[in-house]
């Protein structure tokens, strides 16, 4: 992301808008400036409302107001001169935009945001079955950001536990080796707003996985949000995962619940499903 210095009027409206706190007014040039190393290319500043005002006119008014100590309080989410410019990014910096801007699609999975379906489509995808536990371990959220080398510290620790990394997940796609959890080297210093590592285990692995996450979290300078999922039984009850979590002392008041209304409707996928069910009969 860039700020056009010919347009910027140093009104500072964009400073609180940035989720990473990467924007400041540089007193030497009297223009808003982006700390490129901290910027995660999320596009929040770029999407601010705009007025396309003439910068010279706005600067003149601001100077006059300053002389008379008149404080004008503008709408807080407006860049008066639409000064932000989304520049072309190249690898590896483009990974920042892909992982941080929710409007950008992850090419590896074809999904926006963090690029994974998790158990949101479990009723048709069957990612996590009864007796299995899915984990979405999210880094950098909320509002802190994370560098890929921090994520790698976790993926390496999880790989040592022998977990299964979800194939349809953007971080898994960046792994050089799923057995070690190593990520592509040229990415490691890039900072992003957030990313999800997704794994699956049997229920008896819940404690070692969550203990590992908590331990590794102490050594990486970010925040981590953890979601754990399972498939409910035929009565719609979770009799396996919730009791384990309670026994381990976790409280969980919020959840995302798949209501099971989905079904396979793509023609090719339907044929595959019927073949799958036909197989044992043959």
């Amino acid at each position, binding site marked *: 992301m860039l700020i056009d210095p010919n347009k910027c009027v140093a009104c500072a409206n964009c400073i609180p808008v940035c*989720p990473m706190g990467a924007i400041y007014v540089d007193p030497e040039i009297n223009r808003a400036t982006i700390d490129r190393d901290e910027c995660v290319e999320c596009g929040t500043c770029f999407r601010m409302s705009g007025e396309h005002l003439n910068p010279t006119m706005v600067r003149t008014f601001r100077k006059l107001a300053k002389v008379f100590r008149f404080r004008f309080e503008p709408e807080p*989410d407006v860049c008066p001169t639409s000064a932000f410019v989304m520049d072309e990014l190249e690898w590896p910096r483009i990974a920042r935009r892909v992982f941080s801007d929710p409007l950008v699609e992850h090419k590896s999975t074809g999904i926006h945001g963090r690029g994974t379906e998790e158990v949101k489509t479990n009723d048709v995808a069957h990612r996590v079955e009864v007796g299995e536990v899915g984990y979405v371990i999210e880094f950098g959220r909320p509002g802190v950001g994370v560098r890929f080398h921090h994520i790698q510290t976790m993926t390496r620790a999880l790989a040592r536990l022998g977990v299964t990394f979800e194939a349809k997940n953007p971080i898994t796609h960046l792994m050089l080796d799923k057995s070690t959890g190593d990520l592509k080297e040229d990415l490691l210093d890039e900072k992003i707003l957030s990313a999800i590592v997704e794994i699956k285990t049997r229920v008896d692995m819940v404690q070692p996985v969550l203990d590992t996450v908590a331990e590794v979290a102490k050594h990486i300078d970010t925040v981590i949000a953890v979601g*754990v999922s399972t498939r409910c039984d*035929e009565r*719609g009850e979770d009799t396996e995962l919730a009791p384990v979590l309670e026994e381990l002392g976790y409280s969980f008041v919020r*959840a995302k619940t798949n209501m099971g*209304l989905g079904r396979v409707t*793509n023609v090719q996928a339907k044929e595959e499903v019927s073949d799958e069910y036909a197989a044992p009969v043959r």
Partner: protein
Amino acid sequence: MTNTLHRYGDAESFRDDYIIFAIPCKGKNDEGSVEKLKTFLRICASHKPANMGNSQFGSYRPSQELKPTVHWSREVSVDYDAVIDAVHKAGTVAAVFDSSEKAEACLREVKEADLGLSVNVSTSVQGAKNLGECCGIQRHSVEYSLGFTDPHDHLPNSQVLELSTMCGHGMVSFNMARKMLDMVREGRRTTDQAVATLARFCPCGVYNPERAKRLLEDARTHQA
């Protein structure tokens, strides 16, 4: 839409926060899903949601065509039709409801419509379970939020967190949430104005303006 999973607050604070979203599964039911997604959103719109979104923008959205008079008089209008009309490819669409009654009525109609898309409810564990039972739906899968781990003390106070985590993609910055809290406390913005400002940053349309309004009203007199 882990985007909605880790909202900060206790179960009581989710009493006016029900998100219902539909999502096609790649390779399983995404063919021809655009019209189904629009139907889902039309059903949601008929039950007076607090917000609605199509993964590109929500019913509160920024504008690049503002006039300078906006600083004195800014009209806040929600445009559900624009959200529905802009669905042009398979993706997640969502609606936020501020009461269990509205969410239940919506879910019931979505079930009857039998769209074949995966439908999820994001709220308290018990809230979603109750909703399913009222509509005769048995839960298929559940994903629990275990909350945040913050050993390095990065996170701000609970009021800022409650406001900012309603955009799980992190587009509502801590600093902007803090600024709106201050402006409301200082009488420089009404809660409605502050809420509209915050909601415009959430491009998925899952920011809950009604809950935010309640939180800002509470915060006016109780500083965290």
